């Protein structure tokens, strides 16, 4: 996608901010708008629902809600920064959750279930990667095909039914019910994935190469980077995240189902883009994506608290997204 931005009459361009949190201050500046939008939403929350919004239990609830899709968003940030896109995330999460909750898998206990979910996600991600890196398919189409087929397979495995996590395997459910220092375990899983993602993207050669592969694949190739292998790994990483997300959704819903993660792809991509990652690749930050996701989650939470009807919610949501983005642009501008 080419933003018109690039084509806009010169004047000081906004491009100055470097990719990655690489250069301290600049990195912060570019997220200022998102933080401002979040603060604004929080103020709205405090004003409209003083007794509910700022309670610790509500904040925990926001984090728990954000965690499944948050894990997926981390993987998506890598893929998009690396110049690709992954439409199959929701379907892969569903497939992994179904696979892990089949009777056969459940009979081996919770650890095997977790391993199964993670392997299924990673494996399907690898398949995406092979189609794209070695089959040279356009990422949009390859992952769309995977999305469609993944849901189909999940429906078939589950016989279109919801599969309950059995009593014996309730260890998995405890990820959502057990709290440490007031936070359910799954929030820690989410935090770990974010931390891990941030480290890899900002502090390792893998991360640096991701920027290169997304920014100018030809240059990356001529600089000796194995672009195909790298691309393959990016999709596998995204699949891995889907597998982890599957474990979290199993914990939260106590089920595996082919309907899990419906439209997650859109939400995850939206969070990543609103967080400042370029859809054309080469630029992106984990922090931005997570802030973007939190904005969406807080909006939803505010709506829940205020009991808006669906129609008004949607209208308001659209308006808020526009406002948040314009706010972000403005804050960037005044900084440069």
């Amino acid at each position, binding site marked *: 996608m080419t933003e018109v931005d690039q084509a806009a009459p010169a004047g000081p361009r906004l491009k100055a901010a470097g990719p990655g949190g690489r250069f301290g201050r600049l990195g912060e500046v570019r997220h200022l708008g998102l933080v401002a939008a979040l603060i604004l939403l929080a103020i709205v929350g405090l004003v409209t629902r003083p007794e*509910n919004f700022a309670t610790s239990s509500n904040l925990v609830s926001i984090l*728990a809600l954000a965690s499944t899709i948050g894990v997926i968003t981390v993987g998506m940030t890598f893929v998009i920064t690396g110049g690709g896109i992954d439409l199959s995330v929701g379907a892969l999460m569903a497939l992994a959750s179904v696979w892990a909750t089949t009777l056969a898998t459940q009979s081996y206990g919770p650890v095997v279930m977790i391993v199964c979910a993670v392997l299924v996600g990673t494996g399907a991600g690898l398949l995406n990667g092979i189609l794209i890196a070695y089959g040279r398919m356009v990422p949009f189409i390859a992952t769309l095909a995977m999305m469609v087929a993944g849901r189909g397979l999940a429906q078939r495995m589950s016989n279109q039914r919801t599969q309950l996590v059995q009593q014996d395997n309730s260890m998995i459910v405890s990820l959502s019910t057990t709290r440490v220092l007031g936070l359910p375990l799954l929030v820690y899983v989410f935090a770990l994935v974010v931390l891990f993602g941030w480290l890899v993207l900002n502090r390792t050669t893998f991360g640096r190469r991701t920027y290169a592969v997304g920014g100018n694949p030809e240059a990356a190739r001529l600089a000796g980077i194995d672009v195909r292998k790298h691309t393959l790994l990016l999709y596998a990483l995204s699949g891995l995240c889907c597998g982890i997300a599957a474990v979290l959704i199993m914990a939260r819903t106590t089920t595996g189902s082919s309907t*899990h993660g419906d439209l997650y792809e859109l939400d995850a991509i939206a969070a990543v883009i609103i967080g400042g990652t370029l859809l054309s690749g080469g630029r992106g930050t984990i922090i931005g994506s997570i802030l973007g996701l939190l904005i969406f989650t807080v909006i939803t939470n505010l709506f829940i608290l205020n009991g808006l009807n669906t129609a008004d919610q949607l209208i308001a949501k659209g308006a808020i997204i526009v406002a948040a983005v314009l706010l972000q642009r403005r804050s960037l501008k005044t900084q440069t």
Partner: protein
Amino acid sequence: TSNEPVATQQASAPAAAPAAEDGNDAPGEKVVIGFSAPAADHGWIAAISKNAAEAAKQYTDIEFKPVEPTNDINQQISAVESLIQAKVNVLVILPNDGQQLNQVARQAMDAGIPVVNVDRVFPDKLSYRAWIGGDNYGMGVAAGHHIGKTLKDKGVSNPVILEIQGIATLPLTQDRSKGFADALKTYGFKVTAQQDAKFTVESGTQVAANLLQAHKKIDAIWNHDDDQGIGVLAAIKEAGRNEFFMVGGAGSANAMRDIQADSGVLKATVTYPPTMAASAIKIARLIAQGKGMSDLLEQQVPQSITLASETITKDNAAQYLPLGFES
């Protein structure tokens, strides 16, 4: 439909105003009722939300707290959690999927908040105090009997019977299909082909248009849902087909009017009334106030109420029309 003459819109308002003399309707202690349902993306669900809200409005002692309707399980869980946190007195929940919301409903019950479960049922009885819903299996049975009997009477052998389902991944869809197949079996018939749609008008058109091509001669169609039925009928009209008859599902006012007019292929529909949401609100209020249902001998509200699925044809359409929901 919202653009029908105003008169019918009024008439279709759920459950006539509470009879004044009924002691149960007399104002009691104040109760906060939390309400959560899927996103109102089609007529039946929209009617659910509206019926609930209107029922609540009839009582001065109800504070009605609906939360964001959503089709995402994860979000509905959060929504219910927020209601638990807000310490409502009683919850009315129509879950996107009973199994997936089971745990959070259970949490509510454990926290001392009674749950009234509507339509899609929680698998665990500890997760709800009362359930009210339609009879999905019964709906299929009713449709199956109507079709089976009509065809038998016409003396058709080896009939081509099509079934257009709603959302395939819902247990209620599977129950409906099972009932349908079981009833047809008593006549020695079976379903020739089955496709699922999404409860929306457009999905009905798309599926029906293709199905009509797959079967050059059809004897009967059962369509699970009258919302998508509008689309199914449009596709039939577009294809110019009329050699068969069709039975609908859920019982929208629109379908009933069509049946009454007897101008097209739609000859009957089997009900699955969204008035259940209004009843659920009343039940929730009674439970919270510790009352029973005055017509029953029991001191308490029953654990489960299944609404009968009725077959509406040209003959009784007029009588049911006021209960039909606008799609």
